[in-house]
């Protein structure tokens, strides 16, 4: 199943529940299009909840990086929530774990924007 994005508001923070596979093709383009829409709509405080992301490839990692820089270039911040072990391992292997702000608690992630 390709990646599906379900945004919801928690105060002034937009939490995006992502599920499925983020791989080259439909999965990565869904993520790219979804983030672009949110940025264009003026959302600047974004949390990507990746708890239900079952698989991510190098293209998916690239889309996470692209989302991070896209939001930052528009004056916002994008943070990651609930990484599975495999996604966490991939971000560590690629040295991106320290680039992203990563949280295991949605409450803590939302509060971090205050």
């Amino acid at each position, binding site marked *: 199943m390709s990646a599906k994005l379900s945004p919801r508001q928690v105060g002034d923070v937009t939490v995006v529940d992502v599920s499925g596979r983020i791989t080259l*093709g439909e999965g990565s383009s869904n993520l790219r299009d979804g983030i672009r829409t949110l940025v264009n709509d003026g959302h600047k405080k974004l949390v990507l909840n990746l708890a239900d992301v079952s698989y991510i*490839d*190098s293209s998916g990692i*690239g889309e996470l*990086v*692209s989302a991070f820089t896209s939001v930052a270039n528009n004056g916002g911040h994008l943070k990651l929530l609930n990484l599975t072990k495999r996604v966490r391992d*991939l971000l560590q*292997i690629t040295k991106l774990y320290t680039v992203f702000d990563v949280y295991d608690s949605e409450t803590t992630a939302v509060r971090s924007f205050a």
Partner: protein
Amino acid sequence: MAGNANGETTRVDTLLNSALESADEAERLVVNVARESGFVEEDLHQIGMAVRESIVNAVVHGNRYHRRKKVHLSVLSADDRLTVIVADEGEGFDLSALPDPLAEHNLLQQSGRGIFLIRTFMDDFQVRRLSPHGTEVKLVKLKHPSKVEED
């Protein structure tokens, strides 16, 4: 099935279309062979991802989605290893020209991590140019790296 001189038996030998769906098909085929060969779950994930990245490279950078060009996938198994060979019909690429994805100035690049992940997840990775066209990559995953003698 008889093995070759290295004790390897060919388990898969097929041609795939130059389409992204071939990555799903190849991953499924290879992981099935690896599972039957006794690899543990974490190895299956790593093998699957390495195969996916190799097929994507062959389709996107090698054959450039050309409908008349094919990707050749072979899988060989032996008691101690799984070997996957992926060949495209493209113009080839220079491994040494690939940027280091772990360099500070490359961390925020959107692409360039595929080969790095293959090298990380597999025990051996070799690339060779084919004549007159094409690139062949050979991936090897050992069942017990610490117990296998170096060639």
